[in-house]
């Protein structure tokens, strides 16, 4: 996997040297304000790296995070601020893009020590799963909300239904994804679902949220914050942890994915049709090189589509591939969401998935996989822009 000459690439140029998160809470249960959560996660990431927080010179986030870069820099007393990037739109689809933007800032020489984070207290600012306080609506949501298509479950159910129709995907494929996340959460003390078991019978008996989504196909809504620290690869060994390198990242969506309402030409899609090939090209790996995947579960159906679009199986093979035993650590065919992810660890808007990928490459996961040199994160299926990334150990450079 040699580096490719003068081709523009982020491959191997930047390392993640620290990760940190707050305690994770049910929505409304955080004792701390959202901004304080952000500060706690950032300090934890710096502490993990053994890095003075005053050396941070850039911040990156997504989904209009309310913890503003300049306020963070002032609160932390960073010596100077050199990069402040916010990924446009796409909600959790920006969780890898925020990392890509930070890495690009470093590679371009704009900054040297960038924190990427997400802080979110849904209990303080309104839940994603409830539409409230809206009298009139215009734009995309005007074509949806008056018909009861209000919150993410209803906004995405018809994409998944169409995909199941086109490719013969069964409910059991969605169920296997939920079961894997819940299984992994049982070994993860950070997980909000720690100690709460899910089995096929309980899944099948659970209430519908919006068909084809049962309760357990839907992510949680939580309070917390998570952060990581990036430095140029030449500084990676100055810090106490095993460095984890970004091998590739990609952002965006295909032709007119943003055509509202529900008018994207490729409707039954997780929006990775153009983004996944970009990722593999930069990372210089293929699907068979990937040992472990964290794939954002707003809804399990989005994972079914996203994994297919990343080439792990053809859509028609989804029912065979998506079996519980294939998806679990340490040595399933493709261990998936090994922290419990959005379904069972914490809905940290996907950023907990990036931290888990770092842990896997370090060898520190509570569900450590055997093949951990190359770890993938897939952000926010079915939105636009989406994003993804691949991390690797030093051996992959």
């Amino acid at each position, binding site marked *: 996997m040699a580096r490719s000459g003068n081709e523009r690439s982020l491959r191997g140029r930047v390392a993640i040297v620290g990760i940190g998160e707050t305690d994770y809470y049910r929505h409304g249960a955080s004792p701390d304000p959202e901004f304080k959560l952000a500060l706690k996660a950032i300090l934890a990431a710096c502490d993990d790296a053994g890095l003075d927080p005053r050396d941070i010179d850039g911040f990156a986030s997504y989904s209009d995070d309310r913890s503003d870069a300049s306020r963070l820099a002032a609160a932390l007393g960073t010596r100077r601020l050199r990069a402040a990037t916010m990924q446009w739109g796409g909600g959790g689809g920006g969780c890898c893009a925020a990392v890509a933007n930070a890495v690009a800032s470093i590679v371009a020489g704009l900054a040297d020590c960038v924190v990427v984070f997400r802080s979110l207290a849904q209990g303080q600012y309104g839940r994603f*799963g*409830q*539409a*409230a306080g*809206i*009298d*009139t*609506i*215009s*734009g*995309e*949501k*005007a*074509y*949806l*909300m*008056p*018909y*009861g*298509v*209000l*919150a993410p*479950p*209803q906004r995405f*159910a*018809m*994409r998944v*239904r*169409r995909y199941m*129709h086109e490719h013969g995907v069964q409910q059991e494929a969605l169920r296997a994804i939920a079961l894997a996340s819940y299984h992994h959460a049982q070994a993860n003390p950070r997980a909000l679902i720690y100690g709460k078991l899910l089995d096929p019978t309980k899944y099948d008996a659970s*209430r*519908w*949220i*919006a*068909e*084809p989504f049962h309760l357990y196909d839907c992510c949680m809504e939580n309070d917390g914050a998570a952060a990581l620290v990036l430095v140029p690869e030449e500084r990676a060994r100055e810090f106490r942890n095993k460095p984890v390198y970004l091998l590739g990242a990609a952002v965006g969506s295909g032709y*007119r994915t943003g*055509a*509202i*309402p*529900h*008018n994207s030409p490729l*409707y039954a899609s997780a929006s990775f049709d153009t983004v996944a090939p970009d990722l593999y090209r930069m990372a210089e790996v293929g699907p068979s090189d990937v040992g472990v995947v964290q794939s954002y579960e707003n809804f399990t159906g989005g994972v079914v589509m996203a994994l297919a679009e990343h080439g792990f199986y053809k859509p028609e093979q989804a029912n065979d591939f998506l079996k519980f035993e294939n998806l679990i650590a340490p040595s399933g065919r493709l261990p998936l969401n090994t922290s419990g992810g959005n379904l069972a660890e914490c809905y940290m808007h996907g950023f907990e998935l990036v931290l888990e990928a770092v842990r896997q490459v370090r060898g520190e996961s509570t569900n450590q996989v055997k093949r951990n040199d190359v770890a993938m994160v897939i952000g926010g299926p079915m939105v636009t822009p989406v994003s993804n990334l691949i991390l690797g150990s030093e051996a992959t450079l």
Partner: protein
Amino acid sequence: MSDDAHSAYLPAGLPIPVAEPDGLSAPYWDGLRQNRLMVQRCSHCQTWQFGPEWLCHRCHAFNPEWVEVEPRGRIFSWQRVWHPSHSALRQHGPYLAVLVELPHVGGVRMVGNLLGDPMQPVTIGNDVAGFFEHHPESVPSYSLLHWRKQ
């Protein structure tokens, strides 16, 4: 296609659709109030476009023309919603939302409710006809376009 005696499919209290401050979708919402379904079609290259935009995505001519089309189509996807994601829907029970493709309008799609029994079987490909649901007492007043199986 309109039936004043028909009560609204969903309870009152959901967000009321209005055009954007720049008026982009005003011809669509005004049309629904008059039992007319209006969709953009570029007068230069005849490309259909929905939702509306100031520009034809194919030939880049500005201000695509609004054309009245027949409100009929076929179900492209559907969902039966059980969880109330809005206080107005508490205690309401399940309802059906459908994504309808209009083959005679360049295959544009629209979201609406499928009238009738919420537990009725729904099949992708079912033919449906439009039904205008008016809310003249609402402030501001508005109209919706629903669908029923043919």
